[in-house]
């Protein structure tokens, strides 16, 4: 396999996660489907938070129960547990950001598949199914383990059931859970990116002029990698990248790495953007110039 085809495959895999999502203004927002690992991470965080909340709530109710010597706290405790378990997800997903704390930490959110707004009934439907996907197999396993009547078949059936349902997202392109399927929703990336400074503006200490032939060796992919390296500003990494570029275009080590890289970045960017304006997009160094 050539490096060129590897690059192309990587890009195709990323493009597969992008869904067209055209706003009424006619701009495609290109939503990205959240990966299964991010979803799982969000779920684990949410479950951990629910358990912590449940423990705190139990302690508070125990304390209140002993202090007031009434059994009403027992009812409140049972109701609270029920609400926490069933409405943690629903409550948070109904909010402005359509995400539970776990999802927010992972930078993902729920959206309606048809591009309309996310309605309360869809949120309810997708989360009530969770009872079946997650809580039922869990309780089944824990009950049968606790009562020691776990025949191998019960455990096996429970496990099979849990696996079929919980691995369901892995078997469709859109990473939909059963609940997503029924509610007509998607979970997509919704990360916040802060506006970083423009690497192409600002004063340049020494301007090094590169010839067109020296700039013609790289494409957009390399340009954006270079941008990432410059933004991270790690001396060792910059030295490595600068040496690679110097070797490629045959220049001696004459300047500081950051000065060299910044100059090269700016001129490469100007060159590629100019080509872009004329409708020529050179994806990477393997593409023809």
């Amino acid at each position, binding site marked *: 396999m050539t490096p060129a085809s590897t690059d192309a495959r990587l890009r195709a895999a990323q493009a597969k996660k992008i869904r067209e999502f055209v706003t009424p203004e006619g701009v495609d927002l290109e939503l990205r489907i959240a990966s299964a690992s991010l979803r799982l991470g969000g779920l684990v965080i949410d479950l951990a938070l629910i358990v912590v909340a449940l423990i705190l709530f139990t302690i508070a109710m125990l304390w209140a129960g002993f202090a007031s010597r009434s059994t009403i706290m027992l009812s409140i405790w049972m109701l609270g547990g029920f609400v926490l378990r*069933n409405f943690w997800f629903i409550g948070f997903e109904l909010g402005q950001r359509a995400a539970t704390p776990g999802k927010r930490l992972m930078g993902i959110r729920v959206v309606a598949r048809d591009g309309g707004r996310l309605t309360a009934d869809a949120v309810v439907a997708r989360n009530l199914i969770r009872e079946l996907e997650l809580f039922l197999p869990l309780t089944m396993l824990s009950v049968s383990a606790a009562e020691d009547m776990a025949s191998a078949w019960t455990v096996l059936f429970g496990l099979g059931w849990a696996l079929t349902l919980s691995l369901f997202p892995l078997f469709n392109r859109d990473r939909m859970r059963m609940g997503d399927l029924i509610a007509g929703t998607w979970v997509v990336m919704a990360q916040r990116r802060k506006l970083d400074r423009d690497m192409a503006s600002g004063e340049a200490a020494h301007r090094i002029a590169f010839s067109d032939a020296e700039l013609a060796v790289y494409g957009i992919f390399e340009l954006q990698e270079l*941008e990432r390296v410059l933004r991270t500003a790690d001396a060792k990494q910059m030295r490595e990248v600068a040496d690679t570029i110097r070797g490629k275009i045959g220049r001696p080590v004459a300047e500081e790495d950051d000065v060299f890289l910044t100059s090269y970045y700016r001129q490469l960017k100007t060159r590629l953007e100019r080509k872009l304006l004329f409708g020529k997009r050179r994806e990477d160094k393997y593409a023809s110039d």
Partner: protein
Amino acid sequence: MDATLPTSETPAFSTARFRAEREADWVAFDALLTRLEKRGAKALSSDELLQLPLLYRATLSSLSIARATSLDKALLDHLEALSIRGYFLIYGVRESRLDRLKRFFLHDWPAAVRGLWKETLIVALILILGVATSWLLVAHDPEWYFHFIPEELSGGRDPRASVEFLRSTIGHGKAPDGEDGMLHVFATYLFTHNSRVSIMAFALGFAFGVPTMILEYYQGLSLGAMLAVFSAKGLGVEFGGWLFIHGTTELFAATLAGAAGLKIGTAVVFPGARGRLEAAAAAGRTAGKVMVGAIIMLLAAGILEGFGRQLITDTPVRYAIGTLMLLFWLGYYYLPRRSTAP
């Protein structure tokens, strides 16, 4: 081409100039969105609210231009994330929470239940079929009872029990253990337990509705078996009252939950003119509304069962309350009304 061209002259359009011109708009839009997310629409003045769609459109247009001209990845990512955030905030919420709640109770809930009338009828028939099956079997041969209700769950309420014992279990004569102080605990337990069963009946619906129907039939079976035991001892009317006071609400809710599950199942099997996914999504939304309603009904049933049934031991009053509740639900759901919804 001139070798020194990029450095020697500035092109007429440059991404640096584009950014310098538009950046203020993005920063302002970002700040407005952050305040909107944190404190809602009240946090913005009317001027700022008018600005919001303008800034949103400016950001979207910037995104289009940047995609076509800029190769600055950080800039592109920022604009994309900002546009997505803005889109969902601006097109997301059109009503206040109070309005949404009002619309749910006045229109959405009964309309969703009405939309499920066919499924409701089918599930009700299955439930009745279950009752009839076990009633006939147990009335014919009491040994059948133990097939329907496991011995450890029946608490002695089986065909071998004495009339006095059976009477005491339905709240006539001596109270079981004088646990009056624990009524609310009992009510809460019933509510959470029944809600779980109903959620399950709903959630199982996607498997073509078959498990839902089995679950409903099973519920009917245990009910019918109990009914047969009590009526064999001449306690049928009293048992009916014991059941009726909350049962009309609870069984209605269970039926609706089953109907919601069945709706999804049928939508998956018979999607009609739409795609299977689309049909399932549409059915899921109707069913979601019905489920919220069913949980509210179960809360009412839990209160009736936990408090009402234990405190009211007069059979006619029990029947009266049960009938009233049934009429209330039927009227709320099915009485024709002017459509006020958009």
